[in-house]
């Protein structure tokens, strides 16, 4: 993975992710809190980009908007050519299942299900045959080094192991866009480096587009693009 930082998206191919004049304002009990202000930003396919910024700047919100887990106050978000903020409930589910894979800071593995089930179930429930989903899950778990723990339950895994399983789960439906919300934020240094390596290698090997939110500037710079969210908009991260 290159350490070089590019400050502009590739313009030769249509972007996979695009924020067009996006505003996002949260309404509190007494005041309105603007998070994103007229954001225009795009990310080309197969490019990895990181976003850093202060806590509360709106980094996770940016990611949730791309995953259609939240809707913008105004403006439009396009993912793979689809205006996601205009999708209806059924279409949203299809979109979330097939187009994006999400990794959260707190893994959010389902404790009632084994490691393998956590990985193959999203594919099965999205319409894939159980056998194919299980085979694909086995491969992905092997790629993240968790194949021997596939029958274990998340409760007995370490933080790093859980995050590796979460990475496999995010890739099970082979989505073009991978969204990672501080995936190493909860890990010690050794595990953090391990997860970083896995994530960036898998993204590179499977030719995914990655949008990474992190507080870790070293990790951020390992992406092809590095951006900083400040005052409701994205600015290129300055080189150290």
């Amino acid at each position, binding site marked *: 993975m290159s350490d070089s930082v590019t400050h502009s998206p590739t313009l030769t191919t249509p972007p996979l992710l695009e924020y067009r004049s996006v505003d996002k304002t949260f309404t509190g009990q007494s005041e309105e809190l603007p998070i994103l202000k007229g954001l225009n930003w795009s990310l080309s396919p197969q490019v990895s980009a990181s976003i850093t910024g202060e806590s509360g700047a709106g980094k*996770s*919100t940016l990611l*949730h908007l791309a*995953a259609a*887990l*939240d809707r913008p106050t105004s403006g439009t978000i396009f993912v793979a050519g689809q205006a996601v903020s205009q999708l209806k*409930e*059924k279409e*949203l*589910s*299809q*979109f*979330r*299942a*097939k187009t994006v894979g*999400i990794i*959260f800071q*707190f893994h*959010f593995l*389902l*404790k*009632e*299900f084994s490691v393998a089930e956590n990985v193959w*179930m*999203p594919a*099965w*429930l*999205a*319409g894939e045959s159980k056998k194919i989903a299980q085979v694909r899950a086995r491969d992905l778990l092997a790629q993240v080094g968790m194949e021997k723990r596939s029958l274990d339950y998340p409760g007995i895994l370490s933080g790093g192991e859980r995050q590796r399983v979460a990475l496999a*789960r995010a890739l099970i*439906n082979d989505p073009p866009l991978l969204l990672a919300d501080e995936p190493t934020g909860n890990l010690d240094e050794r595990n953090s480096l391990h997860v970083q390596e896995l994530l960036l290698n898998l993204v590179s090997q499977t030719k995914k587009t990655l949008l990474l939110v992190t507080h870790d500037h070293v990790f951020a710079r390992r992406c092809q693009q590095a951006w900083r969210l400040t005052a409701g908009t994205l600015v290129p991260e300055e080189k150290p």
Partner: protein
Amino acid sequence: MKFRGLLFLSTRYLRSKRRERGWSAPLMSVLGLMVGVLTLNAVLAVMNGFQLTFIESILEVSSYHLQWTPPQPVPESVLQRLRTLPGVRAVEPYTETQTLVYGSGGDARPAILRGLSPLAWKRDPQFAHHLTVLAGSAVPGKGQVLIGEELARTLGVGLGDTLRVLALQNPHFSIFRPIYTTLTVGGIFRTGYYEIDVGWLFVTRETALAGLTSPQEEKIGFKLIHEDDDQAMMKLIAKTAGAPLAEFTSWRTFNAAFFGALKTEKTAMMFLVGLVFLVVGVNVFQSQRRTVQEHTEEIAVWQALGLDVQRIRKVFAWEGLGVGILGAVLGTVLGILVAHSISHVLTTLQDLLNTLLKAFSGGGVTLFSREAFYLPSIPARVIPQEVALIAGFAIVSAALASWLASSRVTKIVPSEVLKNE
């Protein structure tokens, strides 16, 4: 999401709930529903048993499903034509009069005397079936009378004894003329319905027309294959007979008050016992709300992974449906078993109570008295449509409660849940 997928997730959450909270909540819901279904089935079966014994006795023995009061005697050819109509089970001409009957002791009792063709016992097998003959002949001979068991007992007469019958004949529809006749008891019957057994006499038409009634008073009684088709059949019969509809009366009209009271009684009982479903519904609702609340985070994750909220909702609503089906099946099976052996159940319960009471107070109780109810045993009649209705209601109440409780799923905003964590 496929059905199997839904079931897989649902059973897994049920398993986790059992691990965390034990089986008590779903088990209590199943038990509550089972008891409700059992009770309702057993109570209704016994109620049906009592009511249908009365209703069938009335319809089959005394009132018919339809009555036609023609202004003049109907030719036999017309009756033959009416007998061939689809939906008609029996057509019987009869004469009827109110009488005072004197027994050997001189006591007088009011009774309705009906004159029927001797063929009526053959042409209308249900009439013959409900008129259980205890002594003598089923079909009275000339000058003989078939008397109800209770009336015979009250008058102190037996087989071969004579009765003096006073009737008021009204041949010209203006002046009533008292007529005294002496009849011999040719048979004693029992229907199981006290009012008939204490107040009815049957003679042949020939005996009745020999002074007690006149041919002008002849009516035609109709038995239908489906008594609920009375209105349509009334029109068909009137049209076939070429008679005005006003000359016909349905069983609903001449028994309206009594049948209405029985129906009200049954509805009230169904409602009261059915309240248990409300209690179970609240139990299922509370339990399911708690489950959804406890799984808020997982629900948000499922949404992020691409499951739409309505399907996630179904995952949690399955439990209610499962509780409903299990409770309904168990309750139905046990309810039918109890209904079919209600006499045995009551006898056992009575013996048990009496054993206990004797030990403490020396008293005793009777849960079913043959004399008080005028029935040899407790009649129970299971009506499949009612059983299906009760089971369906139990399933729907539990499933609906669960579905309503799972509406919380739709209120979960994944971005808030996942971010706040």
